[in-house]
């Protein structure tokens, strides 16, 4: 038998690039977009480094004197630090004897012996820090870095959760229509009729009162996402309504795809670009909202630092001439938010087939 001549492999059809590939190519040519992307990636990298303790892990150490000057203002007068250093010793009147009423009296001698053995470590505090110190003498630069980690994380986590909630609800409303849509629309109307500030305060008050929202940054993430999902709900719902009647969905139905499959396997990828852009916008919005919540006292707990807590601390520092914490937090936040916003724009332009 002669060698079977196999027909040469059919010429591979020219693969048309998918939406994402096209978007990436377009983005690559957008200089501002690429720069923003670089900045955002840099911040994310900083965030990761900070999270893993590679930088700013000792942000809470009080290396400097109170309100230490930045290095570039080394000679400036620092009355706060001087007052602390010169504090007048308390009047050493003879202390009152407690030994006849004190439950600890039997062990006084042992106590004194033990205390004498414990070494006292005096740490010398620095007069200046690279970008100055806050009132406790903590390094403002390190705080800004750690603060960016926390703020970005809060922003991203809230945005992800809000997008998730809004997308799922929007999908259900848009896809199923009918009673499900009516119920979800009712929900949407309630949330959007109440003034945003009231909604946030109400949820924040509940979070602190019941403690059921959890600890750490969980409450603030929940507050932001539970009040912020309405925007994306509207968009996704509109998209789903649009796509529901499209051919490919009907085709999927024909081949027996379940409702869930149609909703999330088929339609969702086609609306994901809308979700992505909205996610990006949410991140920016929530980072800014965190500042306001921190100002009101609902921010991250005491053992953490965020841009919001830094700005809340700094609100009275400008008048007394200690501007560096305000500048550090304000500027780093502005840079990140600008970069993120510009990136969102470029992303939207890149993903939008119409704008060419």
């Amino acid at each position, binding site marked *: 038998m002669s060698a079977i001549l196999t027909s040469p492999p059919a010429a591979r059809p020219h693969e048309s690039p998918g939406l994402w590939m096209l978007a990436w190519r377009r983005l690559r040519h957008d200089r501002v977009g690429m720069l923003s992307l670089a900045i955002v990636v840099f911040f994310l990298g900083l965030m990761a480094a900070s999270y893993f303790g590679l930088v700013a892990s000792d942000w809470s150490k009080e290396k400097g004197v109170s309100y230490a000057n930045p290095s570039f203002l080394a000679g400036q007068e620092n009355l706060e630090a001087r007052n602390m250093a010169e504090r007048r010793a308390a009047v050493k009147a003879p202390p009152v004897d407690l030994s006849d009423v004190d439950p600890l009296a039997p062990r006084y001698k042992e106590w004194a012996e033990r205390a004498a053995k414990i070494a006292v470590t005096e740490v010398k505090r620095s007069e200046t820090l690279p970008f100055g110190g806050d009132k406790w003498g903590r390094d403002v630069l390190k705080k800004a870095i750690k603060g960016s980690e926390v703020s970005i994380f809060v922003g991203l986590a809230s945005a992800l959760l809000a997008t998730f909630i809004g997308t799922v609800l929007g999908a259900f409303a848009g896809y199923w229509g009918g009673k499900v849509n009516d119920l979800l629309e009712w929900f949407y109307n309630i949330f959007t009729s*109440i003034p945003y500030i*009231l909604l946030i305060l109400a949820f924040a008050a509940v979070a602190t009162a019941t403690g059921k929202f959890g600890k750490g940054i969980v409450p603030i993430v929940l507050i932001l996402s539970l009040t912020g999902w309405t925007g994306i709900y509207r968009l996704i719902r509109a998209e789903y309504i649009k796509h529901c009647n499209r051919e490919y969905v009907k085709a999927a139905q024909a081949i027996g795809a379940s409702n869930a499959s149609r909703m999330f396997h088929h339609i969702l990828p086609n609306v994901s670009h809308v979700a992505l852009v909205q996610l990006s916008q949410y991140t920016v919005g929530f980072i800014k909202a965190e500042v306001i919540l921190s100002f009101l006292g609902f921010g991250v707990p005491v053992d953490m630092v965020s841009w919001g807590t830094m700005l809340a601390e700094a609100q009275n520092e400008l008048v007394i001439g200690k501007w560096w914490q305000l500048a550090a937090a304000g500027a780093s936040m502005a840079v990140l938010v600008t970069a993120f916003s510009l990136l969102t724009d470029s992303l939207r332009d890149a993903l939008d087939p119409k704008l060419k």
Partner: protein
Amino acid sequence: MTAYVIRRIWQMIPTILGVILLIFILFNWVGGDPAQVLAGKISNPDQIANIRKQLGVDQPYWYQLWVFVKQVFTFDFGRSWSTNELVSHIILTRVGPTLTVMLPCLAITSTLAVLFAVMVAYVRGTVTDRGIMIVCTVAMSVSFLVYIIVFQWLFGFVLGWFPVQGWSESFWKNLTYYAPLPIMLAVFVGLAPELRLYRSFFLDEINQDYVRTARAKGVPEKKVMLKHVMRNALIPILTNLAILLPGIFVGSFLLEVFFSIPGLGREVVTAVNRSDFPVIKAVTVYLAIITMIINLLVDVLYKLVDPRVSFK
């Protein structure tokens, strides 16, 4: 048309009931106990119980909810628990100052935003366009809090161009002396996002077929922009304004706190801190109703302006 309006009004009721339910759950059920705030330095559980009785919060929840619903439909929320002022009086007197700041702000911001958006759309794609957009974005990225702290200190105190804070009884004095700095701040912060939005509206219109047709017909570019594009872009712009409108009643509580403006925003934040339910309930419900009415008006206007839009 009337049927449509009536149907829409009828549909508002479930939403209002939903708002009532949500606020009730958040404040009455879960929120802080107002009796604690109103009790003195030294009070015993008996006195606290008495306060709760006087306020009516010792009643079963379903009864309190029923009272709430009644209050909404009779528009009588009683008196503030902390100051005893009639809630209706509170709202009527605080709305004035808030609007004195927010209405000029809205007007100025929108006018400037439209103007700049048109200009930028005219030179779209150029370096100027990109440059202005980036400046906008940067302006939007600085926290409102930072703006307030710095502007108050710089313009009010260091330069002395404006009073640092304050308010008076005279409307004219407020408008010309006390309001300008807060208005300026609010415009500064609000201009950028609106400008970006309106620019996108204009660009959407510019890419439509009818514009290409007009250009092909030889209509000069300026006329295209001002006559055709502007008119069509006005619809989403007005829609956006309508969305912003309910927000001006509560205004910005940050501005009101820092500038001592006796407005509704500050009142609301204080009410939440003190668990002053009557004020919270009244403000929320009234604002919800206003929001819904404004949405309805916008939809009706749509129909009147654009015959293509049909009523479902």
